[in-house]
């Protein structure tokens, strides 16, 4: 039986992993073959129970619409979800996600995508005055929680997640990513330690245009989860990655923090360092810790976080997982292993190992601001 959702009797899913990210700051597009080659070098960092990719800039023709990728276990789930979608969204286009038969991916759910926007006169307007983004978030959570056999795994604009159970290079072939073009890519190779593979559990984990690939275990998961629940996030997947995505969503989209400040919440500087800063900075960082202490991600992690404005790669506050970065012209590469970068960029301009808690932030140049965004990036 295929598994879309985490129905195992565990509090949460734990895994070790390999990851990789590529961004071109001038939005020059490249095909998925590059990142496939890079992540395949990290083959041994996974065990074939999860691989996936996020790509940005791949849906140029539908850039203003929310692109929902949904996996279905059966067709009755599809019809009931579609009834919800039709009632609440204007669907401009829908189609089966292109896949190719490969010898490696034998069993898979039914994969469908929808390009759509929330209706202006949708029924929930009677009860709320949610913005489009908030409504999309609510819809994603509703479907993932309440619709058996259906799982939304991508919901952003001009971006998409492609993931499943298998090694990432096989997943790339399955989704024919060699033919897909984008100006930012992230990839993940998964090594789950306490559950068999499940399609929904593969990375990247996405919400709106946030995508996360993550290697690590969040030892503070318990409190991070309870903190998010206070803000009405529904943590149905029970994965660390889900927690990270929602914390970014809360901090950046809801509380208006910049990416830089958000990273200072996730990997907060130690008080012993804060105390040495000048007064203004000390005040700010102390307040961040006081207010967002429950959002501190504690424990080993390396993450690559993509969003419409760029990419962030970072480690936990004492660097307990590997992360290497490199630049070559307008390209920036990050990966768990330098070998992965060198596989596609043999002699980069610069290679370095980011320090604990210090993010690598790459933003696109000449950014076209998106409507309805609260963050100035």
């Amino acid at each position, binding site marked *: 039986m295929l598994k879309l959702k985490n129905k195992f009797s565990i509090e949460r899913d734990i895994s070790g992993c390999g990851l990789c990210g590529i961004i071109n700051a001038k939005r020059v597009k490249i095909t998925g073959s590059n990142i496939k080659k890079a992540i395949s070098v990290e083959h041994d960092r996974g065990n074939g129970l999860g691989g996936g990719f996020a790509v940005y800039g791949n849906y140029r023709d539908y850039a203003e619409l929310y692109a929902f990728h949904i996996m279905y276990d059966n067709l009755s789930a599809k019809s009931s979800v579609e009834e919800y979608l039709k009632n609440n969204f204007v669907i401009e286009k829908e189609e089966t996600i292109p896949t190719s038969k490969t010898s490696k991916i034998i069993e898979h759910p039914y994969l469908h995508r929808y390009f759509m926007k929330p209706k202006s006169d949708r029924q929930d307007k009677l009860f709320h005055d949610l913005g489009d983004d908030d409504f999309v978030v609510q819809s994603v959570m509703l479907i993932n929680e309440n619709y058996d056999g259906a799982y939304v795994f991508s919901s952003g604009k001009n971006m998409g997640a492609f993931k499943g159970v298998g090694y990432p290079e096989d997943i790339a072939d399955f989704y024919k990513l060699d033919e897909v073009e984008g100006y930012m890519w992230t990839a993940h190779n998964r090594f789950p330690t306490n559950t068999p593979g499940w399609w929904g559990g593969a990375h990247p984990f996405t919400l709106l245009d946030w995508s996360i690939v993550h290697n690590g*275990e969040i*030892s503070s998961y318990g*409190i991070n989860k*309870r903190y998010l629940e206070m803000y009405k996030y529904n943590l149905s997947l029970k994965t660390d990655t889900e927690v990270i995505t929602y914390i970014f969503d809360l901090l950046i989209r809801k*509380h*208006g923090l910049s990416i830089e400040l958000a990273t200072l919440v996730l990997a907060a500087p*130690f008080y012993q360092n804060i105390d040495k800063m000048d007064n203004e900075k000390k005040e700010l960082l102390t307040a961040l810790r006081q*207010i967002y202490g429950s959002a501190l991600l504690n424990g080993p992690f390396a993450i690559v976080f993509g969003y419409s404005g760029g990419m962030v790669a970072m480690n936990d506050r*004492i660097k307990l997982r590997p992360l290497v970065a490199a630049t070559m012209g307008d390209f920036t590469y990050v990966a768990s292993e330098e070998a992965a970068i060198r596989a596609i960029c043999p002699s980069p301009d610069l290679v370095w190992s980011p320090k604990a808690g210090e993010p690598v932030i790459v933003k696109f140049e000449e950014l076209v601001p998106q409507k309805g965004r609260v963050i100035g990036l």
Partner: protein
Amino acid sequence: MIKSSFSNIQSEYLALIDHTKCVRCKRCIQNCGWGTYSFGGDKIIADHSKCVACGRCYTYCPEDAISIIKNPTVIRENGNWKDNHIKSIWKQSETGGIVISGMGTTFKYKKYFDHILLDACQVTNPSIDPLREPMELKTYLGKKPSKIELDFNEEGEPILKTKMPPQIELQTPFVFGAMSYGSISLNAQKAMALAARALGIVMNTGEGGLHDDLIPFGKNIIVQVASGRFGVHRDYLNSGIAVEIKIGQGAKPGIGGHLPGEKIGLDISRTRMIPLGTDAISPAPHHDIYSIEDLRQLIFAIKEATNYEKPVSVKIAAVHNVAAIVSGIVRAGADIIYIDGYTGGTGAAPNIIKDHVGIPIELALAQVDERLREEGIRNEASLIAAGSIRSSADAVKAIALGADAVAIGTAALIVMGCHVCGKCNTGNCSWGITTQRPELVRRLDPEVYGERLYNLISAWSHEIQEVLGAMGVNSIESLRGSRERLRGVELTDAELKVLGIKHAGL
């Protein structure tokens, strides 16, 4: 009524002197606050009926000649009619009074902390070595905004716009529980003040006002306002780091207090601002707080009087409906809620209350934290858990259940020599803790015991760091409320549900 010439109540303990060892130095006579010992011409003799097993005499006997044993004379065993029932009946039939004692309940209720186990890292996440890596225990108590607000300076860098509500900064998540001058001696308070200052934590005046000698320790003191309003004036409110309104106490929820006139000497009368030798009676309720809206008025009266510069804490006993009550208190404007479980200590309380009223702190805390999160107001107030925190393990578990910090009272007194004899109410404490008799008080050296308190809290803090490291986190805020790191053993489904934790193995 004819006065009975004998009492049914037999000595609980026997003070036995080994006369072959005894050198008749008479230190025991001097040390015993209860008058157990006297000199019978050629040897020490003991009046067993006065012995409370406080341990002072044998601790200070240079010849090891004293042993205190439980009186082996039995009251015929009966599973239903236990010793304490029978003795209370005798006592009450002889006196017609309420049976009163000090410290917490002696009943053996289930201790939930002892049924909770902690998690540790293996393979998938590394544990962290606290000897080599920073391990943060710093804790801020007070209201936190739910989100940060920012401004930007000329360089476009973010600066803090939010005006942070006042906070108490603790270097380690412990505070000393409220124990008033009157219920304990000034020297005992001084020992805690010295330790609190050295540790970067706080002590609490209790409801007895602030003695002049403690004023220099203001930054490490929470001043309390209780129903008797003893020693409360404007300068008092402003002399500490925070103000606490005491509504209730775990050992005696719903009832007041009574410090008898004979304990009100000159110093206490000055500090409490009451006439010399008068009884200091704390009414059961605050007579200006008959409901939640009245509490709100007092909270804001105190905030006005302190120019909104001090966090206001509200201390309550853990009772059945505690979660809803705390939610109300948070909404009434309190910055800190201090919850005292039913095993908490006291200077004096009727046994009927102490042994039968209230609920365990573990259950109360778990429910309060959950309720505040459900209502989305957990950030509005910090939680202090109290009610017999016996070890750093209890503290870790309380914090993981949702407390910001824990308060220790009885443990601090044990540091000073207390053997938990439960006779605080008599004022004869041989250790100089719960007494105002000058010859007893002066034997408690604040500097000596201040250092021992410092040692205890330092040791417990190191132990917490070890646990955090084993769990793979390096900051106390990653443990706070992280119930996923707790598992229950020997608990029913109902108990697990209330605690919000899973059974071990799951």
